[in-house]
């Protein structure tokens, strides 16, 4: 039964495109014909350099941006369709939650932690399960490993790691089934990063939500994620299980990206050569081809 559960698809992104108009004639293809699936209870990592369209993709999935082509199926519902979205609005807005990179700007500086965590419940008119809003906030705080004494503080009084935990608590207050985290650890210290990553792993096990984890720290992605997608210039160039991707990268861009991970060992690190990826080598035409089970690579032509 549990094995079957693992195969169940929660989110299915098909040929998604999003373009930012630059002038009347020119546009930037931020997300270009991207297809992938996230299964239930799975941590899916999305990596790529800045400006490759990771955040745009996340925002399309969350219906922040209206996609320009393709479709996104969440639990079989096409959320790109305005009618479907309106009919299921409440379900979609409660069961999908997002965590942002900069907890400094994503938390209201003028609200107390307690109000921040319970705000989504108030907006959605949900009766708190644990009696009062305060009790609900206390429970969530306990869950993310913060003391209840912080409930009456303002975000400005907390450290970066604590603020990020508050942001996580707010997202979890809705008991989401899909959590999208857009570079949640990029602005934190190494030791705090480790704490937050452990927390994600722990929560995911307890809650069983599906998790789209966007990052450019490849070492963390390797540690945390079940499957990983690599993006480059709006295209998904490789999708595979974390072990396969890091052990046997196929696309030249993935190879270049992996070669940039610093190794904490001076002798090895200095001797190591970085693999350069030439932009001109990148062919934006092509399709994802399955080269081995669950290992997809973008390849030229359409013979696949």
């Amino acid at each position, binding site marked *: 039964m549990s094995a079957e559960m693992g195969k169940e698809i929660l989110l299915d992104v098909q040929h998604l495109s999003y373009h930012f108009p630059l002038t009347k004639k020119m546009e930037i293809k931020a997300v270009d014909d991207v297809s992938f699936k996230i299964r239930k209870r799975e941590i899916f990592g999305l990596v790529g*350099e800045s400006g490759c369209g990771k955040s745009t993709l996340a925002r399309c999935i969350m219906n922040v941006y209206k996609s320009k082509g393709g479709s996104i199926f969440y639990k079989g519902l096409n959320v790109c369709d305005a009618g479907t979205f309106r009919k299921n609005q409440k379900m979609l807005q409660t069961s999908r939650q997002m965590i942002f990179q900069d907890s400094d700007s994503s938390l209201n500086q003028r609200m107390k932690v307690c109000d921040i965590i319970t705000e989504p419940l108030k907006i959605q008119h949900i009766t708190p399960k644990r009696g009062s809003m305060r009790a609900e906030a206390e429970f969530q705080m306990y869950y993310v490993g913060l003391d209840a004494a912080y409930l009456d503080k303002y975000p400005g009084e907390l450290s970066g790691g604590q603020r990020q935990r508050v942001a996580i608590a707010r997202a979890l207050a809705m008991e989401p089934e899909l959590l999208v985290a857009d570079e949640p650890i990029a602005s934190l210290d190494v030791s705090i990063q480790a704490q937050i990553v452990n927390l994600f792993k722990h929560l995911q096990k307890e809650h069983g939500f599906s998790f789209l984890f966007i990052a450019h720290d490849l070492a963390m992605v390797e540690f945390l994620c079940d499957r990983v997608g690599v993006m480059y210039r709006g295209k998904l160039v490789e999708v595979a299980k974390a072990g396969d991707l890091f052990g046997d990268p196929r696309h030249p861009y993935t190879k270049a990206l992996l070669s940039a991970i610093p190794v904490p060992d001076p002798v090895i690190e200095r001797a190591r050569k970085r693999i350069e990826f030439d932009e001109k080598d990148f062919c934006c035409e092509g399709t994802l081809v399955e080269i081995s089970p669950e290992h997809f690579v973008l390849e030229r032509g359409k013979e696949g």
Partner: protein
Amino acid sequence: MSSLLEIQNLSISFHTPRGEIEAVRNISFSLSEGEVLAVVGESGCGKSVMCKGIMKLLPACAQIKSGRILVNGKDITGYGEREMCNLRGSFFSMIFQNPMTALNPTMPVGRQIGEAVKQKQPGISKKALQERVLELMQLVGIDSPKERMKLYPHHFSGGMRQRSVMAIALAGNPRILFADEPTTALDVTIQAQILDLLREVQQKLGTATIFVTHDMGAVARVADRVAVMYAGKIVEIGTAEEIFYDPRHPYTWGLMQSLPAFSRGKETLHTIPGMPPTLIHPPKGDAFACRNEYALAIDYEEEPPMFPVTDTHYAATWLLDARAPKVTAPVGRGRK
């Protein structure tokens, strides 16, 4: 080896309404010609304050409480603003963390680099200035500088901006370059490029570099020597090989273990429990004691001195005292 910069028992405090914050406490180290010293530690441990303190770029509420800063053997601790201005840019200069805020968004990049050159050579001719700007842009690896010097910072990508900031920092041929988390705002591929560039420029010009970061991977790539800072103090200092292969301080162990590379195949990442102490009233004894699983009774009472491990490797932990129990380090694989 002659030491270019020598810091002796430097302490810097901030006077705030909440009390005195002892941001840097009794730091001593020296920097030789052409050397890269990496300073690692968590945020708030005083890394940036130390750099800015040496360059005297701190706000008025900060005060150098004690200690001396020696530059080529000359004491600059008492220097005023005018004397410091002569040193800044030509003797030492700084690269800041966020290139977007370090650059002026309303001015072409070429002119900003030119401004820095003019500062040191006021009488330079227009033609010579342009040549110097082009030379600097080439040095930091900006392709087709002639076209690019007319562009504004917002036209540039993050990596290009950081390169421009570096060109400005190098304009006065400084002997020491302070790089304050130059790669934190950048992603992996660009980070690797900037690190390589930093190393390349450093070898070409022989500039000594103080590289502030919290990324141990980046340290491994560029540093000759490493200083680990915690709660305003240097707790361990040594060559890169010594710190990576034979670390002695429990805090250094903790930092290394929290890297995912050390937890491959394990369920959870290692974390250092607790939070760094506030520096308003630093705790008695070793500031790291309450987070340290190897803490001894004496750690709560008395501050450990710097114990020498080798001639170049020092660590401030009571574990190195002759009377301490033997503890094997959880990281490091011995010297190769």
